[in-house]
């Protein structure tokens, strides 16, 4: 779940006449990442698209035009994509829809031109006064008078388009989706090397899938297509596929925004799917704001259907839950101290409530947030240690990563135990020597970065404080100044509460998100993550819009 799946490079070789069957089979399997043939070797040339390709493209063009005019979004298609008969019937059906739609569209356009002309003539009386030949005058007046009729006609036509939309949108979406797939299949030969009678397909697949593919190809092509696994040294451009459990998939977006992990390293997706919302919750930490965010996300989820929005909203969903948990810990509800202000209690079962009061325990929290930083950075170095251990061996792993952990703890030790400064200085010197041996003398500058990394985690407190500060200021103005002023004050107070907290919530949502992601990218990822990998995109899985 943490490391990329093992990949094998394969060659599939076969007779050109069976190419279509092979591609169809591979397309359905969705397991091969094709390496595009770059047309450079002698004796081979790029394959040609199959004959149906141009016909399909024509259909798709008219289908997309229809979708555009009828305002059909892909999401509206519900029926399963199945084989569509490409008979004369399909063609006739498509043409008849097209004619109907185009005819109505044209009429609407004409009416709109007329209407906009009429707009210019503001008043019939102006026309009467104007010096025009009686004929023209009559026509013009007729035209202006027909304005209402024209508008009615336009609305009727639009209504009819709506009906067509309802009737055919399933057919149109399904056919478009299906044809796009067919086009992709028919264009796949462009990515292969071919000779006069044979083709060679080069690609990557998971090592576990090779056997399955072998069997399928044998069944489909009757033993004609051969699949050969190639052993290769120095795996440079291996596509990366990391199996992330479904609930944590959205966090892949956050990692990919930084860089795709490469084939030789541990993917941080699982880790940040825990730490990102945790940091978010620590910063925003307010039961009321968490609830509002949860509701906002639930609302936007129905509205924003693109893949990018959906994963962002899923991430925020996790974040809102952590925000509520920390809201309970801090005892904050829209900036009010809820246990005392609302229920008049200061302890539950002998435990002082709230567990942590952010404004009164600033110094302990400052230390705690730096401590969280030390732990987080250490985790980063441990992952880095495993990465280096796997690729370069123990010696490098110790020199490059353990040395840094040592430096970090010696520095922190000096702050916490000033009495032990001399032994710790000795330890620091030892680890610095190790580190210089591992990474070179230039890396000495990085020691200061390490210190600033740790201080940087104090933002966990700082961002929260500014948010609580604003919320409390709003509440204080309302409760102490406005409400005692009578009815008008109460009305103003409610307005102030709604407006102020909306603004503060918006700021809080954005700031917590940005600072939490920054802690991952700048403080955490730099300790182990190199990235620069290629995403595993098997044939048959279409690129989704983000």
């Amino acid at each position: 779940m943490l490391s990329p799946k093992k990949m094998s490079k394969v060659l599939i070789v076969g007779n050109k006449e069976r190419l279509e069957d092979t591609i169809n089979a591979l397309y359905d399997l969705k397991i091969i990442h094709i390496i595009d043939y770059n047309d450079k070797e002698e004796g081979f040339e790029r394959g040609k698209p199959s004959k149906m390709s141009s016909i399909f493209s024509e259909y798709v063009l008219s289908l997309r035009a229809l979708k555009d005019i009828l305002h059909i979004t892909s999401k509206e298609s519900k029926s399963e994509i199945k084989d569509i008969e490409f008979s004369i019937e399909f063609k006739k059906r498509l043409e008849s829809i097209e004619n109907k739609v185009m005819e109505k569209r044209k009429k609407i356009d004409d009416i709109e031109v007329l209407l906009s002309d009429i707009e210019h003539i503001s008043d019939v009386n102006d026309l009467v006064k104007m010096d025009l030949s009686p004929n023209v005058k009559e026509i013009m007046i007729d035209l202006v008078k027909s304005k209402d009729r024209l508008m009615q006609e336009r609305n009727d036509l639009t209504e009819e388009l709506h009906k067509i939309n309802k009737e055919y949108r399933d057919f149109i979406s399904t056919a478009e989706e299906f044809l796009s797939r067919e086009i992709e299949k028919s264009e796949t030969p462009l990515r292969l090397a071919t000779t006069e009678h044979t083709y060679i397909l080069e690609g990557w697949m998971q090592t576990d899938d090779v056997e399955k593919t072998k069997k399928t190809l044998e069944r489909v092509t009757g033993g004609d297509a051969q699949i050969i696994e190639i052993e290769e040294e120095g795996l440079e451009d291996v596509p990366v596929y990391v199996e992330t459990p479904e609930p944590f998939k959205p966090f892949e977006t956050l990692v990919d925004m930084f860089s795709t992990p490469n084939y030789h390293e541990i993917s941080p997706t699982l880790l940040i799917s825990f730490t990102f919302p945790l940091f978010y919750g620590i910063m925003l930490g307010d039961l009321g704001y968490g609830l509002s965010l949860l509701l906002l996300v639930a609302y936007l989820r129905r509205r924003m259907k693109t893949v990018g929005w959906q994963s962002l909203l899923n991430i925020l969903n996790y974040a809102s839950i952590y925000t509520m948990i920390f809201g309970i810990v801090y005892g904050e509800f829209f900036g009010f101290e809820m246990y005392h202000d609302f229920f008049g209690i200061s302890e539950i079962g002998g435990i002082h409530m709230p567990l942590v009061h952010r404004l009164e325990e600033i110094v302990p929290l400052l230390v705690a947030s730096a401590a969280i930083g030390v732990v987080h950075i250490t985790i980063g170095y441990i992952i880095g240690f495993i990465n280096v251990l796997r690729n370069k061996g123990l010696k490098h792993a110790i020199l490059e990563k353990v040395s840094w952990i040592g430096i970090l703890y010696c520095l922190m030790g000096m702050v916490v135990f000033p009495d032990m400064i001399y032994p710790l200085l000795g330890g620091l010197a030892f680890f610095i020597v190790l580190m210089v041996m591992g990474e070179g003398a230039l890396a000495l500058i990085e020691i200061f970065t390490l210190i600033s990394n740790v201080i940087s985690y104090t933002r966990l407190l700082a961002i929260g404080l500014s948010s609580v500060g604003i919320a409390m200021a709003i509440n204080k103005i309302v409760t102490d100044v406005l409400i005692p002023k009578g009815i008008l004050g109460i009305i103003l107070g409610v307005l102030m509460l709604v407006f102020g907290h909306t603004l503060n919530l918006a700021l809080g949502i954005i700031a917590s998100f940005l600072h939490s992601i920054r802690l991952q990218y700048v403080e955490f990822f730099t300790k182990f993550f190199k990235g620069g990998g290629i995403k595993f995109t098997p044939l048959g899985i279409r690129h989704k819009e983000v």
Partner: protein
Amino acid sequence: MADINVGLIALAAALAVGLTGIATAIAEKHIGSAAVGAIAEKEELFGKALILTVIPETIVIFGLAVGLILLFVVIPGL
């Protein structure tokens, strides 16, 4: 109690936050204008640009940390 030192330390805390705030603003101004230029050419960069823009916010957070330490650790210790 009303020692002049307390006042000076409070002033120092204010300077720490205020000046680092100005520094952050200057840094973000440059990044921000470059980011808007980049987004104008390539809209997908919005997410990355937003994150890059808040990177210098660390400076003011350092200032705030120093300010908090001055107010809540140094002054009570006098």
